[in-house]
């Protein structure tokens, strides 16, 4: 008696091997294609986000609030470099893909004329944008504060309360005690300790992640909000970039003063403006902002008495 084993013809073996190869190639190509598509989507989201940042900039307004709604949960990556004349800001995004995993990071969009203060990585579906122009003593740029987190301000000064309440920012709540803060919200203390963000109004300092940064002016100024809502490293980098732009603008105003020299509109501010440019260009940290603010105040006083003001 002959036992009949499993007979598989060569044609079947060939079909299985080639079929498996084709299947593998198809799966590999599909996987690559999806991940490439994901990266394209992320790049598009970042480009759209940057395009949407232009309308939120201020004209003659003193402050503005707006929000950007994403289609799905999105991670916004904010990088800053202060290399070069104006430094550079780059924004990249990541969108959650299949299996709740973060997709590959899209190509970063680089911008030189915007200053987005935020955590180095924000995650969520709604990006809250709060924009205020920075004047030192002329408009230097718009401070764009971006966050996806909820914040709880404890015992905030009246100026801060009035301004943020008037803008109707839904992600910022105001309470008197820390225990009243909603779960998950980042607490901001204006007096007392134990909060995620600590504001020292007397020293004009903000401590976050054990790092202290400084803002130049009284309460209600854009850099106070920037210091509260952004990572200290991002804050320091953008402060340097803003000071570099202030320096270039001082040169532009000095050139304008020279251009108008001899006319009934002439001024002698050119020298002061060029020395202000030298000073602001060499700022290495936010700790020097107090001195910059004092210099700016002197320039503003000199400008205000001119027959036709330079700025």
């Amino acid at each position, binding site marked *: 008696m002959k036992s009949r084993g499993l007979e598989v013809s060569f044609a079947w073996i060939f079909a299985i091997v080639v079929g498996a190869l084709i299947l593998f190639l198809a799966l590999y190509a599909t996987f690559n294609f999806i991940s490439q598509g994901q990266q394209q989507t992320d790049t598009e989201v970042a480009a759209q986000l940057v395009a949407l940042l*232009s309308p939120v900039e201020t*004209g003659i307004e003193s402050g503005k609030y707006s929000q950007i709604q994403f289609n799905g949960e999105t991670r916004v990556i904010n990088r800053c470099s202060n290399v070069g004349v104006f430094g550079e800001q780059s924004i990249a995004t990541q969108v959650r893909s299949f299996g709740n995993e973060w997709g590959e990071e899209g190509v970063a969009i680089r911008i030189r004329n915007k200053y987005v203060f935020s955590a180095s990585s924000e995650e969520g579906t709604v990006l809250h944008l709060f924009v205020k122009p920075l004047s030192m003593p002329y408009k230097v740029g718009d401070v764009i504060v971006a966050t996806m987190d909820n914040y709880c301000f404890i015992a905030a000064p009246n100026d801060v309360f009035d301004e943020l309440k008037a803008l109707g920012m839904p992600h910022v709540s105001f309470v008197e005690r820390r225990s009243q803060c909603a779960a998950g919200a980042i607490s901001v203390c204006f007096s007392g300790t134990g909060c995620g963000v600590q504001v020292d109004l007397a020293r004009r300092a903000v401590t976050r992640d054990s790092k202290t940064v400084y803002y130049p002016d009284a309460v209600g100024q854009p850099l106070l909000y920037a210091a509260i809502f952004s990572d200290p490293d991002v804050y320091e980098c953008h402060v340097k970039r803003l000071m570099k732009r202030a320096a270039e603008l001082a040169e532009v105003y000095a050139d304008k003063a020279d251009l108008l020299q001899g006319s*009934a509109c002439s001024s002698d501010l050119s020298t002061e403006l060029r020395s202000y440019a030298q000073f602001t260009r060499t700022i290495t940290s936010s700790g020097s902002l107090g001195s910059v603010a004092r210099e700016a105040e002197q320039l503003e006083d000199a400008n205000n008495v001119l027959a036709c003001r330079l700025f």
Partner: protein
Amino acid sequence: MCLLVGSSRGQLKIQQMAFVLVALMILFGLILVFYASLKTASLRTSAEDIRELQSQEQARKIVGSPEFNYPSGSCASCADFDKAFVLKRRVQQSETYNSFWNTPLLQIKKVAENEIECTSQNYPNCSTITIYNSTNSFSSVSSFIAVCFYDSTIRKERCDLGKIILGVQRT
């Protein structure tokens, strides 16, 4: 003899199958190439749309930027012609402001009968200040603005109807 016939029939079947598989591969490949070209075209269109949208917003907002805004502080669409001229000279002298606004064309002009480019010799008796003008091909967007400057003949600040023109890079 029987074995030989069976073997050649088997070979024929393998050849048929290989032919079908190769044909299938080519078909899938063609479909993939077609899909990829469609996807690339739509990506290019959407990138251009975004860039154009960005330029239109920029044209409206650039006048309010510190490099162009007029000192009075009460006019969001008033450009300072003096500052624009100074900026043009700075761009010509150094590369400081190159690619700051990332646009191939940036022009501020007074609406005038004769279009005269401003130079150090004819300023302020001119109408157009071209800050950037790339030689590459691009399309442009424009927006009406007020162009303000100090007029030494009337010894007062004066505002004229003007335009800001921005270039949009084509890929």
